[in-house]
């Protein structure tokens, strides 16, 4: 078999970029609220259903994409204001458990409303690779994904480093009391973190679904696990770690899938996780304290 290394690498990077974006959404909430949002996959799936229906109704992919962003933001706002705000912060497990409850509520609601069938999700660009001579290089869709994620990362980086709101969000995350003394409305920043994060998560899920089996209430379960692995490897506190680890894991999983079959990918993730944790418990990047009790 002639292995299309280049194509696999490109596809892997695109996939990794999505993992990175989704992991970044996890990092956003972690930094804003010190909560690992286990409901992010389910919330993103809800956004994808909204996008799916908007696209189906209007025949326009871009309106669907906008709908995913908006509905993600709204959902993030609702979840924070309606549920997470009331969780006991002194119990470190409480937020995770409540998020799990949300996962159950959201996925089952989707399944009741729309059934459990896989629905094919349209892609705005072809997924067949461009060929240069005999060599398959990269698909337009992968290029699109890479471009979207690059724009997203740039926008987030600018938001956090160049704007007052970004500065206020970072300050609120690191030092809530000092921030309040300086007039930062910490509660609002937390809500904003959820809103932003859920929008990013919805976008990432929307990008990944055309490359998978299709839309289903559990479509983002594995995406969540992959992104969470990225976070374990890169550190929930580190946006840069999320990006680097995301790209690496995307490439690894794509090669694993190509050589060992798609079913093997979830096993590979567990092996990577167990391996990293047993051999290098502090993760591949720093920020040891974040993970260790």
């Amino acid at each position: 078999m002639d292995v299309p290394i280049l194509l696999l690498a490109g596809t892997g990077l695109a996939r990794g970029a999505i993992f990175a974006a989704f992991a970044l959404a996890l990092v956003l909430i972690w930094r804003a609220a010190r909560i690992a949002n286990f409901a992010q996959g389910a919330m993103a799936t809800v956004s994808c259903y909204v996008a799916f229906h908007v696209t189906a109704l209007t025949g326009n992919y871009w309106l669907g994409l906008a709908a995913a962003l908006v509905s993600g933001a709204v959902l993030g706002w609702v979840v924070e204001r309606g549920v997470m705000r009331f969780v006991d912060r002194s119990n470190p497990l409480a937020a995770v458990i409540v998020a799990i409850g949300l996962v159950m509520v959201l996925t089952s609601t989707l399944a009741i409303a729309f059934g459990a069938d896989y629905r094919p999700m349209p892609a705005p660009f072809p997924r067949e690779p461009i060929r240069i001579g005999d060599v398959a290089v990269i698909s337009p869709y992968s290029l699109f994904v890479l471009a979207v994620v690059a724009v997203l990362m740039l926008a987030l980086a600018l938001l956090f480093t160049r704007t007052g709101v970004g500065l206020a969000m970072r300050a609120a995350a690191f030092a809530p009391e000092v921030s309040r003394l300086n007039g930062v409305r910490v509660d609002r920043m937390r809500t904003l973190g959820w809103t932003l994060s859920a929008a990013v998560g919805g976008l990432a899920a929307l990008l990944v679904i055309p490359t998978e089996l299709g839309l289903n209430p559990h479509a983002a379960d594995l995406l969540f696990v992959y992104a969470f692995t990225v976070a374990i490897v890169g550190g929930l506190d580190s946006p840069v770690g999320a990006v680097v680890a995301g790209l690496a894991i995307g490439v690894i999983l794509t090669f694993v899938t190509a050589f060992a079959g798609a079913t093997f990918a979830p096993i590979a993730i567990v092996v990577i996780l167990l391996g990293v944790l047993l051999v290098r418990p502090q993760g591949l990047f720093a920020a040891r304290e974040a993970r260790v009790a």
Partner: protein
Amino acid sequence: MTDTLTATARHDAQPAALLEVSGLVAGYGQGEVLHAVDLSVPAGSVVAVVGANGAGKSTLLRVLSGLLPAAAGTVRFDGDDLASAAVEDRIRRGIVHVPEGRHAVAELTVDENLRLGGLWRGDRRELRADVDAAYDLFPALAARRTSHGHALSGGERQMLAIARALVAHPRLLLLDEPSLGLAPRIVAEILGTLAHLRAERGLAILLVEQNVRSALSVADTGVVLNLGSVVAARPSAALLDDEQLRHAYLGF
């Protein structure tokens, strides 16, 4: 003990003080720390709060900035009752608290820390000018503007905390032990700066200090707090002259 200053102020029918505290009770959980504290800070004046460790000085400032709820009593600022004002709203009214312990945000740079103080005004250009003015006041900070908070020395952090408070355009500055751990020369510099701001902007300062002599030397009024109660509130000079009081509560 009567609060002679406020008493005279009222008799003279002068405008009410900028900050007017009466019957303030506060504490942590069950333990009451402040027992019916009365206090007033006229606009443009410096009031020093002195007293032994654990007297409740920091607690008083925490209540004034809203970090700690009052159990009873009233706090009026510029005539308004502050009871319902949240912490993040008080800075908007002009009350800026610099807590003890140098609260520079470790993960932010010096420049970002300074900008944090004026974010609430939402005016980028004015904020830039204010931050630059802060650098002029504290040249040591200007040299470190891209350093992160955790990389600063103790003195630099204290300067940063005070500079950030000034960026916030305070009308009343609540300073908790600004001299702690600073070289006397830097303390003198900071106090000089504050005196200047007071003259220039009419800034009022409520100053908590361990170093009683230097605090009273810059303050107009001294308030002695003992076990959560005000035992004396007099012009600084009068306090320094009262040997009995000094021996009993200030230890010199």
